[in-house]
């Protein structure tokens, strides 16, 4: 401080010359702003009660925890339900994919076929039905008798999805070797176009399946392929053989609606 450059005379001369002051209106503005700033404080305090500030964080934490617990419970519930819809979804697929899939062997292995088919229906009918219907819907047109080729086409298109479950099933029941009868369930149940007929078919399923199971022994092939063979026999003029094959087909698949061209003698 002592060695600060300083010129006393210059300083005095400067201060003598430098006497400007801010205008009065500027003073008034600044002082008013300063007072307003102080006055605003208590108003803020009144507007914002302290207990809210004190409990804001705990309330937020509690609300977040409540939401988290609720969500986790919901997710847990959903997780528990998840495997059930899968079963009925797989079942119609297997049915639709007929001879290549393995669900059919299950009834054969367990003995009473209806019990296996009923499994999805009674107990979890309410939950299983909607998912089962969804995949079954695309299977309905293929089952339509008029266009058997479409069945094949759509079956081929759905292959990637179905192969997973089919493969899984095949692994689980490889020894039964009774794959072919499986398609019977699907076509039989899905053959009637429309929801009402489909429902009816579902109700009748147990009895039909019993008959279908009985015919399993003599139904070595899928109906579509079988019918195609019959067509070929007719086309080749081997009518007697065609009639025999058709008769055998009717025995094996009594409820299977025949295509118009084959229905004619």
């Amino acid at each position, binding site marked *: 401080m002592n060695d600060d450059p300083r010129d006393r005379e210059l300083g005095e001369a400067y201060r003598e010359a430098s006497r400007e002051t801010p*205008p009065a209106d500027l003073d008034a503005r600044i002082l008013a702003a300063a007072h307003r700033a102080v006055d605003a404080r208590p108003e803020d305090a009144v507007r914002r009660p302290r207990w809210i500030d004190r409990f804001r964080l705990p309330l937020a934490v509690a609300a977040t925890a409540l939401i988290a617990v609720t969500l986790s419970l919901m997710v847990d519930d959903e997780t528990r339900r998840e495997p059930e819809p899968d079963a009925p979804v797989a079942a119609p697929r297997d049915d639709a994919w007929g001879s290549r899939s393995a669900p059919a062997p299950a009834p054969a292995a367990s003995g009473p076929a209806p019990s296996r088919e009923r499994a999805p229906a009674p107990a979890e009918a309410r939950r299983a039905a909607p998912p089962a219907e969804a995949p079954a819907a695309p299977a309905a047109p293929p089952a339509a008798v008029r266009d058997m080729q479409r069945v094949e086409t759509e079956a081929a298109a759905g292959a990637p999805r179905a192969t997973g479950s089919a493969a899984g099933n095949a692994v689980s029941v490889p020894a039964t070797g009774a794959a072919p009868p499986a398609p019977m369930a699907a076509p039989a149940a899905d053959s009637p176009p429309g929801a009402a007929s489909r429902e009816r078919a579902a109700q009748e399923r147990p009895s039909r399946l019993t008959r279908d199971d009985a015919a399993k022994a003599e139904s070595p092939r899928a109906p579509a392929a079988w019918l195609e063979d019959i067509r070929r026999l007719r086309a080749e003029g081997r009518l007697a053989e065609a009639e025999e094959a058709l008769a055998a087909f009717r025995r094996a698949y009594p409820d299977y609606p025949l295509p118009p061209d084959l229905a004619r003698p």
Partner: protein
Amino acid sequence: MAGGNADGAAADEVLMLAYRDGDAGAFDRLYARHKGPVYRYLRRHAHDQAEELAQDVWMRVIHARGGYDVRAKFTTWLYTIAHNRLMDHFRARGRETARLATADDPEDDPDAILEDQPHPDPPPDRLLERRESAARILAALDLLPDAQREAFVLQQEGGLSVEEIATVTGVNRETAKSRLRYALAKLRTALADLRQEHGT
């Protein structure tokens, strides 16, 4: 000057703390004490913009009251705010931002200039006729580089030491001291004829 009385420096901080705690009257006293020096400090650099800048400076003081704590002399804090506002002003006007910070005159050797001047502190009654020389002094001040003028004005208006000038302007002590010496030397040179006229 800065405090306006013997315990002004301490009282400034006390007043500001009181204002922080809700005493509006403390601000009134603080403002009355410093409004002139701050206004003139700004006027020496921004001339007709001084009023607007002064309002901004004091508004910043008002807004900063909540976080005010005594970490330095009040005037150091106050003039730091003013200096920063001045720099903002120069930036906004496209003026070289470094002007206040680095506008020394390296070609001039303040010691040489000072040596050229006898400045033997002649008696006050023989120095300057203050009324007549006021305009000359302000004109000479206006011719100084901004940084040197700022150092001189901070010393005279704010009552700041070299150390405090360095803090306010963001330079080291030696730079601040050098600027002050340049300013004094040039002012003496510019006002030499007045000294001669009134001193001899």
